[in-house]
């Protein structure tokens, strides 16, 4: 029979960029670029897709946003099929599952579409470019630094994550644990990771549970927008407000209130609109043949300037922005 040993799978067969890039190629007008977020109805993706729309308008292409109303890989597959059926030039997507949509993406690629992933990647061989909001290392470093500053470099902390199998979150958490082994953080102890399932109420309950289980808790990192908002809301209405520190990844609009009322000192996020914007440009560059997804290729992304394709076809947006009392009113998303 077929067993795992003899199945001859070769995981991580890198991204084979085909053909040669022509850095001077022109982006033609009327490129059909489709954005397929994890889920429509998710404000975060609405913002980033709008960034993409801005970019597509700049290059005089046709923009379209489609997607499932619930964040599942299977419905994403059916949308990818529809898009390839409609003859899209570029599909920009954020994967609900790194593997599940691979088959459909490969089929779409074979039908002539260029594939860009953003926010959440698939396996590298299924797409040409992954536009990463920030490197996982960057996030981990930033988050640990923020919490350490807030709790004065010592004490127990916990992490409130999204779902237990969220790829991003898990990678970040792994790297945060590595960060914490550094000597400057030696007095900080990570006691647990809780999962709020990106569900507001669940995250709220989990925060509550954390505080009860760990009376000495000094800080919480919640690297997910839903989680950090729920945790902030819990803290702001509880006796722990201001005593237990909270940081994480959140949007300024959601967190503004809690920054102002002193529940939260500082948190971080990249600009999701820029992320979508960059992804659209990367897709256009691929379609034009300016890049193929090989390491070292360069392209210009409108107002954001020039970007270089890194290893495995990854393009990094840049370091995250830290929001605090002083700058939060300058942002609206």
């Amino acid at each position, binding site marked *: 029979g077929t067993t795992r040993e003899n199945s001859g799978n070769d995981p991580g067969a890198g991204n084979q960029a085909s053909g040669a890039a022509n850095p001077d190629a022109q982006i033609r007008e009327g490129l059909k670029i489709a954005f397929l977020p994890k889920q429509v109805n998710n404000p975060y993706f609405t913002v980033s897709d709008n960034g993409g729309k801005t970019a597509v308008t700049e290059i005089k292409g046709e923009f379209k946003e489609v997607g499932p109303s619930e964040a599942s890989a299977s419905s994403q597959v059916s949308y990818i099929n529809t898009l390839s059926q409609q003859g899209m030039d570029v599909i920009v997507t954020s994967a609900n599952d790194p593997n599940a949509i691979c088959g459909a993406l490969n089929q779409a690629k074979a039908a002539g579409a260029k594939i860009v992933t953003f926010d959440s990647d698939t396996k590298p061989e299924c797409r040409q470019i992954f536009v990463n909001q920030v490197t996982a290392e960057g996030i981990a470093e930033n988050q640990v630094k923020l919490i350490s500053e807030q709790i004065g470099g010592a004490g127990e902390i916990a992490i409130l994550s999204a779902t237990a*199998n969220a790829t991003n979150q898990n990678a970040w958490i792994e790297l945060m644990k590595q960060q914490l082994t550094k000597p400057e953080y030696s007095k900080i102890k990570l006691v647990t990771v809780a999962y709020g399932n990106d569900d507001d109420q669940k995250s709220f309950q989990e925060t509550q549970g954390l505080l009860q289980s760990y009376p000495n808790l000094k800080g919480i990192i919640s690297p997910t927008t839903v989680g950090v908002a729920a945790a902030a809301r819990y803290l702001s209405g509880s006796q722990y407000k201001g005593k237990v520190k909270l940081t994480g990844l959140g949007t300024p609009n959601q967190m503004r209130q809690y920054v102002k009322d002193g529940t939260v000192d500082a948190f971080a996020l990249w600009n999701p609109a820029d992320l979508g914007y960059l992804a659209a440009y990367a897709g256009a560059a691929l379609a034009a043949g300016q890049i193929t997804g090989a390491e070292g290729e360069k392209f210009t992304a409108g107002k954001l300037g020039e970007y270089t394709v890194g290893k495995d076809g990854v393009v990094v947006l840049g370091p995250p922005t830290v929001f605090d009392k002083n700058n939060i009113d300058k942002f609206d998303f």
Partner: protein
Amino acid sequence: MAHDSLYAAPSSSSAETERRTGRLTGLRGVLGSWDVAVVVALVVAALLAGVSVESFATGRNVQFLLLDLVPLAMLALPMTLIVITGEIDLSVASTVGLCSTVMGQLWLSSGLSLELICVLVVLLGAVLGAVNGVFVTGFGLPSLAVTIGTLALYRGLSFVVLGDQAVADFPASWTAAAVRDIPGTSIPVAVLPVLLLALVFGVVLHATAAGRALYAMGNNDQAATFAGVSVARTKFWLFVASGAVCGLVGIFWTLRYASARGDNATGLELTVVTAVLLGGVSIFGGRGGLLGVVAGVLLLGVLRNALQLADVDANALTIVTGALLVASVVLPNAVADVRARLHRRRQRANPVAP
């Protein structure tokens, strides 16, 4: 769901019987039967989509459409029989999820061959179905409540099995086989087992003594018992069959998406129930047929696919699904009501001489 219907007990009120027969005859007069009506709706929808939606009527699209429908169609088959007996199984999607994660876990850590794993997964599905069956028939609990319980239980267990992992390294030959076409056509191979199952379930339901018994117990399980039908045993085996089919779907799902994870097929149960009801099966049991359900599944698929291709918002799709379901039950009744009213008016106009 016991024989005493949720909304109004059959037969005990003749007003009710009058309405029901009115509905039946009314339909028969207008459309032949609900089955036929769904088939007609399907054909009309497909023709309209073919004409008005670009790239709908292409081989590739047919392939996509059918592949997307395989799990729904498979699950709808045993569900039809279960609903006809007056029960319901809301745990199907969670059972699929649990079968999928167990398949992943076995593949990841057991070293067993995939063939054996598949057999084990189908067995597991049957066992999970049997658990439902024991609660419903053995302890005599309402299936709606039991399967809401196992809906949560099985989904929870599927997260327990694989946790935050996703198993994705299934052999390419297997994952490719799940989406392969029948040579020379654009019809996926996976459609064949669905057809076979549909045939089996169809024959059992419509042409065997057991099928008759299903309708009888759906309407009045006590009378069925008195007529020598082993109501409990039959229902038990239906739940087992449903579970086994969930196992098959779990395998298909895992291979098609090359990914075994805890949240596979979440929420599918409502779509399955929608398809079955759209196909004309009465939620109270005792009425409906398999042809209608198969047509209902296809109708749902065609509409979704066509609307997606026509770039209709996912939100509108949600509304359409809901509206379709409501219309499918409201319309026949409304038609029958109007006819009955007309009939009465005519009667009043020229009364029978005493």
